[in-house]
C-alpha cells in the first residue's frame, strides 16, 4: 500500500499531537472555529480514538465573531462532548475596545493577543496548539513546529531552536511555553481536500449564500448585527458571497462567489489569483506586520 501525500500529512499531524499529550503537563488546543481548527480538532479526535481528547480546547472570544461562528462553536462542543473553555478579555470589554472605533490594530492586540496571553497565564498552560500553516504567510513559513515562547509569551525569530527530524525539544522552564503547529506542512488545497474526503463539518459562512454586505475600505463587509453602523454614503446590498477565512466580522472581507459545496470551493480556489489572507485587514497594515504580532505573542 502506498500512502498519498495527504495520508502522510495526516499521520505527521497525529504524531505531533500525541507527542504534546505525552510530553507536556497541561496542554490546550486553541480552537478558532475556522476550517483549519476544524481539521485540527478532527485530527486530535483520531489521535486518541476511541478515547476522548486528553486536553482542553479553548476559544479566545473577541466578542466580534460572526454569530454563525459562535453557534457552530457551541454545537461542536456539545456534539463531541469537548472539554471547552471560552476566554474573553473583560478589561477590553469594559474599555469598549472594538474593531470599528478602536481600529483593527488595537482591537486585535487587546482582544486577541492580550486576551490569549491572559488565558494562558490564568490556566498555566505549558503548550498551546494552533492551526496555523506555513503556506499562509512568509514569516509563518519560518516558524518551527514546536515554537518556543519565553515567560512573556514572546517569539524570538532570530533565535529559534534547531528542529531536526521529528525530534522535538519539549524541555522548558516553569512559566515558559511552546506553541505547537500540527498543520505546519499542509497547504490550503490540502486542507480542503481533507475536509472533502473526511466530510468535516464547517461553519456555513465558508459557503456562498445571499448575505447583507456593505462596501468599506475596498472590502465587502457583512452586516452581522447592529453594532456595525452604516454610514451615510454606504448602502446595504444583497450579494452572493462567501468567506475564505474567518475572523472578526468587521475585519473580514467577503468574496464574490457561487461556490456552495466543498467541491465548488476547491475548483474556485484552483482558479483564484489571490491568497486567503488577503481577506484579512490585520495582515496588511505594514511590511512584516505578522512577524511583529507574533513576537508580541499573537498566534
Amino acid at each position, binding site marked *: *500500500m502506498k*500512502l*498519498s*501525500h*495527504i*495520508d*502522510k500529512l*495526516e*499521520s*505527521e499531524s*497525529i*504524531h505531533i499531537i*500525541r*507527542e504534546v*499529550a*505525552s510530553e507536556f503537563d497541561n496542554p490546550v488546543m486553541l480552537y478558532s472555529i475556522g476550517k483549519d481548527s476544524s481539521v485540527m480538532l478532527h485530527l486530535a479526535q483520531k*489521535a*486518541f*480514538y*476511541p*478515547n*476522548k481528547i486528553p486536553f482542553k480546547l479553548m476559544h479566545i472570544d473577541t466578542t466580534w465573531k460572526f454569530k454563525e461562528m459562535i453557534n457552530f462553536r457551541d454545537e461542536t462542543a456539545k456534539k463531541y462532548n469537548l472539554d471547552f473553555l471560552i476566554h474573553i478579555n473583560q478589561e477590553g470589554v469594559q474599555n469598549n475596545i472594538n474593531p470599528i472605533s478602536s481600529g483593527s490594530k488595537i482591537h486585535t492586540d487587546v482582544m486577541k493577543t492580550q486576551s490569549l496571553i491572559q488565558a494562558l497565564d490564568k490556566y498555566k498552560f505549558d503548550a498551546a496548539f494552533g492551526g496555523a500553516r*506555513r*503556506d499562509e*504567510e*512568509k*514569516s509563518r*513559513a*519560518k516558524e518551527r513546529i514546536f515554537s518556543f515562547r519565553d515567560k512573556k509569551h514572546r517569539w524570538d*525569530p*532570530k533565535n*529559534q*531552536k*534547531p*528542529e*531536526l*527530524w*521529528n*525530534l522535538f*525539544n519539549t*524541555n*522548558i522552564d516553569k512559566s515558559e511555553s511552546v506553541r505547537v503547529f500540527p498543520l*505546519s*506542512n499542509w*497547504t490550503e*488545497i490540502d486542507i480542503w*481536500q481533507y475536509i*472533502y474526503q473526511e466530510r468535516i463539518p464547517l461553519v456555513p459562512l465558508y459557503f456562498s449564500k445571499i448575505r447583507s454586505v456593505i462596501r468599506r475600505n475596498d472590502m465587502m463587509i457583512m452586516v452581522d448585527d447592529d453594532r456595525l453602523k452604516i454610514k451615510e454614503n454606504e448602502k446595504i446590498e444583497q450579494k452572493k458571497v462567501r468567506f475564505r477565512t474567518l475572523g472578526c466580522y468587521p475585519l473580514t472581507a467577503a468574496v464574490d462567489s457561487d461556490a456552495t459545496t466543498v*467541491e465548488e470551493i*476547491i*475548483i474556485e480556489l*484552483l482558479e*483564484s*489569483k*489571490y*491568497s486567503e489572507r*488577503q481577506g484579512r485587514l490585520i495582515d496588511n497594515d505594514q*511590511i*512584516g506586520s505578522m*512577524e511583529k504580532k507574533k513576537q508580541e505573542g499573537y498566534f
Partner: protein
Amino acid sequence: MDIETFFQNQNNKKQLKILTCGSVDDGKSTLIGRLLFDSKNIYSDQLSQTKIESEKYGTQGKQIDLALLIDGLQAEREQGITIDVAYRYFETEKCKFIIADTPGHEEYTRNMVTGASNSDVGIILVDATKGILDQTKRHTFILSLLGIENIIVAVNKMDLINYDEKKFKDIISSFKNFSSEFNFNLQKFIPISALVGDNVFQKNSNITWYNEKSLIDELEDISLNEPLEEEIFSLPVQFVNRSSSDFRGYSGTITSGKIKVNDEVQVFSSKEKIKIIKILTPKGESDFAVKEQAVTLTLDKEVDISRGDLLCSVKNHNYFLSDQFASHMIWMNKEKMIPERNYIFKFINFQTVGKITDLVHKININSFEKIASKFLNLNEIGYAKVALNKNTIFNSYKNNKKLGSFVIIDQFNNQTVGAGVIEHELRRASNISWHQMSINKNLRHSIKGQKPCVLWFTGLSGSGKSTIANIIEQKLHKLGKHTYLLDGDNVRHGLNKDLGFTDVDRVENIRRISEVSKLMVDAGLITIVSFISPFKSERKMARELVESDEFIEIYVDTSIEECEKRDPKGLYKKARSGKLKNFTGIDSNYEIPSSPEIVLETKIKSAEELADEVILYLKQYYKI
C-alpha cells in the same frame, strides 16, 4: 474538471522533500522564488507585496527580487541574507514539493541542518563566478552525513559568466574532486540562472551546449527508494492510550516495515512476545498498517509497555538496548561541547541524561581530515562516544533514520545544542558490575556515629573557601567527627596534576573530585570539598553522584572586586596583566549557583562566624 479526477491526480502525485543549500549569496532563495513563480504557485497579492518590498530592500534595482518572496523575516530583508530555514510548497503536474530554503551563512549552519534533516533531495548551489567555497563543502558533507542520497549541483548565475561551458566543466570537476568519498546515489550537474530562469523550468537557448534535463524535470524524475518488501517492522511507543473503560492501546508512528492483525511481535525491552489484535489507523480499523502511519495497536495480553519502548518483529531485528554508542555529531551552540559534561540526549520517544565520554576526532571541513580535538566548537562536526545514564533503544542511522538520530539539549537553558547520527552500539567497557561488598555504607558510618555527606564549597579564587573549610574541619574534629578535606591546591598537585585550566580540563578536574568525594561518602566520612568549581553542570553532576540528602552546596559569596582587592596569592594581578590565562572571573566564566543550600557572605561576617553557621546547619539537619 471533475473533482474526483482532480483528487485522484493529487493522490497519485509523488511527494518530494527538497532543500537548497550552498554558500552565502549563491542564489538559493532566488531559485526557490523562481520555482514558485514559474510553477505559478504565487498569488498576485503576494507578488505585489514582494514588488513593494523589492523597491525598499531589493538587490536587483527596479526589478523584482525573487529572494524576497522567501526571506520572510524583517532581519533577513534588512541584511539581504537568509537567517532561518523557510518551508515552501509548490506543485507541478507530477509532483508535490516541500522545499526548505536554508541559509548559506556559516553562523546559521544549525538552521541548514534543520532543513536538511527531513529532506530527500539536496540542491547544492554554486555561484559560477565564485566556484566551490568552504560552505559548499561543509553543506555537501552534512548532506552525506544525514544520508541524503540524491543531490543536484546547480551551477548558478551562468548569466554572469556568459554561459561559459568551460567554466561550468571546471566547477564540475572540482566538485567531483572533493566529493569523491561521499556516497551519493544520484549526482547531477545543471548550469542555471535563477535570476533569469535558464534551465530551471525552461531549457534555454543561451546554453546550447547543455543537452540534458532542466532542474524541474530532473527533480520530477527522481525516484525515491521504496522500502523493501521484507523490511522489519518497528514502532516506537509514543503514547499509551488507556481509559477508565477496558480499552488499552499503544500508539505511535511505524518507522519501518508493516504490520498485520494476528502478527506476532515483541516488546523489545522485555523480549516478551505478543499478538496484534486490532490496528486503528487514521482511516479507521484496518487489517494492516505500513511505515509512516500513525496507529494505535491493541494486544492479546496485558504486558508492561510504556513510552520509550519499541514494538518490533520477533526475528531479524537489529536494534540495540544499551547505554553506549558511537556517533557522528554536529555542534550547534556558541558554548562549546565539553566531554564528560552532562547533557540531555533526546531520541524519538525517550530522553535521558548522558555525556560524551570521548571525542575521537573532529573533521576539518576543508580537507575532510580527521583531527584530534578536546572539544567541538559551534558548527564543528566530530565523531564521539556517548554514554547514557539509562538504557535506551536505538538503531544505527543507516538502518533506521528515526531510531538512529538524536539531539543534545543543554540541561540548564534547554537549548538544542547538538545533533547526532548513531553509527553503532558500543559494548560496555564497564560491563563490570559494581563489586558487591559485604560491608556497606550504612555499616561503615554507623560505627563512626555520624551521617556522611559532602560539603561542597564553590566561589571565586580568594573568596575564602579554604579558610572557612579549614575551620569547619577543625570544629568537626573537636566534635569527634570523621572528616576529610579535599582542597584545590593539594589535589591539583597529585591526582589531577595532568590537568590545566581550560574549560575541558576544569570539567575533568571536577569530575574526578566528584568521584573521589562519592567514595569518601561511601567510606562514611564527612567530606569537605573546596574548589572554585565554576560551572553549574559539574556541580550538578557532583550532586547527582551521591544521595540527594548527602550533598550540601555552599556558595562563598565574595564579589570579584573584593577578591581582587584581597588577592592573597597575587593571582588576580597576574591574570589582569595577561600572564595567567583562563582565570575564573577574568577570562573564564563563573556561574553563580541558583539554589545552594547555604550562602556565606564574607563581607559581613568573619570566617569563624561563617564556619559556625555551617556547623549550626549540620546540627539542625544532620543531628551531629
